[in-house]
């Protein structure tokens, strides 16, 4: 709760600081804010408390995910160096919008009432609509923002409709009470309830870009400025999946039989679309967009496993995926901006010109591909273990395994370009000191979690 208040206050303070002449102070200040929020958030560990007549509950689940999302934003922030260098007049607004959207994200993992879920999603999304279009002179950025807004508004409508139907069927917005209502009737519910549930699933699936509601993802991710794409594909996705899991466990556990077939179809489709789609991309940024779809699929796998290992495997997967993705997009942004272009070939010879960038990128790619020694391996491992508890789901693991092997193909293409292709005319890329520090930190974190996963795997 304190973290929500602090973030809102900091966001406003940040806007005022933006009036000052020197914009150099903005990034360190925002980093400081996030460190404070991260620390304050940890104070509520093991101190479960609910607020506003049971609208929000800060339990360990919420604290853990808040921690991850704050950390991800913290890691991401230094990659906005470009805006500082260019003395972008809107920098303060960007940071404030990120802080505000983090408020929405925290509400999405701590809601106790579906109204709060809706409000959280909206706070998060509205900020993202703006940020996607923040490159005002770029046609693609404008297109991305418009597409995201129109599609987002449409699916938010569906989500809201779902919430209303559930309310109609159960007479409450409180997720625990909705759960109790189903138990009271032994899970036999009206068709209004089923329809509402289905709409909720569709609405959230859109937010986490699960297939077949993913069509906006490649275009928006590609068109939006890379820095904000990184935020969308990490924090927004983590919040979405965490909210989804919370919803399913607290409100709809008793209707498992209704939503399970739907979700399993969505999961398989997401895995297939994400992995196969990424293979055929010529641009590294689009590849990462499709890869984020495929990772939504792996996250959904641990959701449909729906057992005591699900929450911690979602948590670990989010950490591994977010850190690697932040590094990948961060490096892509610097490379693309200074070399001009987002194709694989833009990375040519990076191993020669910028060994640090190339190494950090390699570790991130291997982590996303799920190779041992990186966090990504244990992330997949915990997901598979969670799913395999139900022996009848072994086929799903086989599908995921085959598609994970496909994934190695496209991640490796970046590594090959960096180390095995000549640099040609490309020059060394300038990297800000904050960004270098964060890249080293992310690389060490990724390898550390690949060796000692217990640091994160069993905290909730």
């Amino acid at each position, binding site marked *: 709760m304190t973290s929500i208040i602090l973030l809102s206050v900091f966001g406003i303070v940040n806007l005022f600081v933006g009036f000052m002449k020197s914009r150099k102070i903005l990034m360190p200040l925002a980093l400081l804010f996030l460190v404070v929020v991260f620390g304050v958030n940890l104070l509520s560990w093991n101190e479960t408390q609910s607020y506003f007549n049971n609208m929000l509950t800060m339990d360990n689940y919420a604290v853990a995910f808040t921690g991850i999302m704050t950390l991800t934003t913290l890691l991401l922030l230094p990659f906005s160096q470009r805006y500082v260098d260019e003395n972008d007049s809107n920098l303060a607004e960007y940071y404030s919008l990120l802080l505000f959207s983090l408020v929405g994200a925290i509400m999405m993992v701590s809601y106790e009432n579906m109204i709060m879920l809706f409000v959280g999603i909206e706070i998060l999304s509205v900020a993202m609509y703006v940020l996607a279009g923040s490159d005002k002179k770029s046609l693609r950025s404008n297109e991305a923002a418009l597409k995201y807004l129109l599609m987002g508004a449409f699916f938010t409508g569906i989500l809201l409709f779902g919430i209303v139907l559930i309310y109609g069927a159960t007479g409450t917005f409180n997720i625990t009470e909705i759960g109790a209502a189903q138990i009271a009737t032994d899970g036999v519910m009206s068709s209004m309830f089923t329809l509402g549930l289905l709409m909720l699933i569709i609405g959230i699936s859109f937010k986490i870009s699960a297939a077949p509601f993913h069509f906006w993802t490649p275009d928006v991710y590609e068109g939006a400025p890379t820095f904000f794409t990184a935020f969308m594909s990490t924090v927004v996705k983590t919040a979405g999946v965490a909210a989804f899991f919370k919803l399913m466990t607290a409100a709809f556990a008793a209707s498992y039989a209704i939503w399970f077939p739907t979700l399993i179809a969505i999961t398989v489709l997401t895995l297939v679309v994400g992995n196969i789609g990424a293979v055929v991309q010529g641009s590294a940024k689009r590849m990462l967009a499709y890869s984020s779809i495929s990772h939504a699929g792996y996250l959904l796998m641990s959701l449909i496993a729906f057992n005591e290992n699900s929450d911690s495997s979602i948590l670990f997967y989010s950490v591994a995926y977010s850190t690697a993705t932040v590094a990948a997009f961060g490096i892509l942004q610097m490379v693309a901006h200074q070399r001009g272009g987002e194709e694989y070939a833009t990375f040519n010879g990076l191993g020669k010109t910028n060994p640090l960038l190339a190494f950090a990128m390699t570790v991130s790619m*291997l982590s996303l591909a799920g190779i041992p020694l990186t966090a990504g*391996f244990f992330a997949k491992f915990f997901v598979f273990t969670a799913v*395999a508890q139900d022996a009848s789901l072994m086929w799903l693991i*086989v599908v995921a395994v*085959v598609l994970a*092997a496909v994934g190695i*193909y496209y991640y490796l293409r970046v590594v*090959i370009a960096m180390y*095995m292709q000549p640099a040609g005319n490309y020059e060394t890329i300038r990297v800000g000191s904050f960004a270098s520090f964060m890249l080293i930190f992310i690389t060490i974190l990724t390898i550390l979690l690949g060796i000692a996963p217990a640091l994160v795997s069993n905290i909730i």
Partner: protein
Amino acid sequence: MITALLLFWPALAALLVLLIKGESAKKVAFVAALIEFAIAVFAISGFDARSGSAQMALTFPWVESAGISFSIGMDGISLLMVLLTTFLVPLIVLSSFRHEYKNPNVFYALILFMQTGLVGVFVALDAFLFYFFWEVALIPVYFIAAVWGGERRIQVTFKFFVYTIFGSLFMLAAFVYLYLQTPGTHTSDINAFYQLALDSGTQSWIFWFLFIAFAIKMPIFPFHTWQPDTYTESPTQATMLLSGIMLKMGIYGVLRWLLPVVPLGVSQWAELVLILSIIGIVYASVIAIRQRDLKRLIAYSSIAHVGLIAAGIFTLNEQGLQGGVIQMLSHGINVVGLFFIIDIIFSRTKTREITSLGGITQNAKALSIFFMILLLGSVALPLTNGFVGEFLLLSGVFQYNNWFGAVAGLTIILGAVYMLRMFQGVMFGTKSEVTENFADLTLNEKAVLIPLVVMVFWIGLFPNTFLSISEPAVINLLSIINR
């Protein structure tokens, strides 16, 4: 404790080598690899050769909540494989002294780093630890092959990497399943896996999940398509690592994680595996006869030899298993020696085509002798190492089925055909343009070849030194399989 030292020393040394700029990196790497070998030899002194169970073990929790432990130890089979690895790596490093690789510190660090992965595979007593090291060994060799390799290296190593990872992900899925079948709070300890008595239907599909990973690594026909290209395009040191040691990971995996874990599955499919292996023997031998590129020829001969090892192991009798273990050592030694000789010839003549070579014996007496000995070891002449292994393997296959034995026995005849044809073409006859001024071996080259040739004779004359180390472990293994 000494097992942990064996495991981590190369990784530490790799970090050290990484810091050294310039050519002295190779010397440091060589010294580090020698120290590792000394540690392995020292480990023999603490090894009780009468016991068939894992010794010098070390266990501490790794992912405690999930019951995964960092558990290592060695029985006779592991010890022999560790000895092979630690014996070959210094020689592989030494064999590279003639080359000037760009970024030598990274090159040698990767070799040493891979050694940690290899040793880890051979000493791991926990399924997930085994998988972990299995992949850790792959990443460095992929980079060695893909960065320092030949012209077509990028596509070829790409196929190799994706292919092997594809296989090992199935292994991971199988391990996850087995892990969840262990009673109580789950554990991935090897003994818990041995005690799982799954029904034969389950074992049947688990068998394939595990087997596909090992079969791709070995490789067994028809999973071998990545191998000839990868061996040919990689730099010689990577080819040596792949063929000399990494291939043994696959066979070792079968011995340790396939046969005892799913014995019922094995009994259902052993015959099919034998047939595949024997097809592989004949198929690869016939292709080897037709090869003109020396490296490709040895690559195919390697498929044939591994086919025989796999056939022997899947007979599940003591001769077959013992033969498999000893032949792993022999094959490692011979194939590394042969690839080194091809590298010597290539670096002097700039060609590996048999037809453009010839008459090397006239200039290079020492090279001819070493080449001949390694080649005879490879075609299993009595008194050499190849004979012991192939004899035991074939007698194992004959016990299983006479017809299988007869066809597998073709390997001896076909092996002699392609090997001697190659020797004839390269070494005898009239000198060609490129071999006109062929220089004989340098001191450095002799230093690599002499230890290899000594081992050819040692294993050939006194195989009991090695067989007695692995025998209790093999008997123990058989008792678990036949339980």
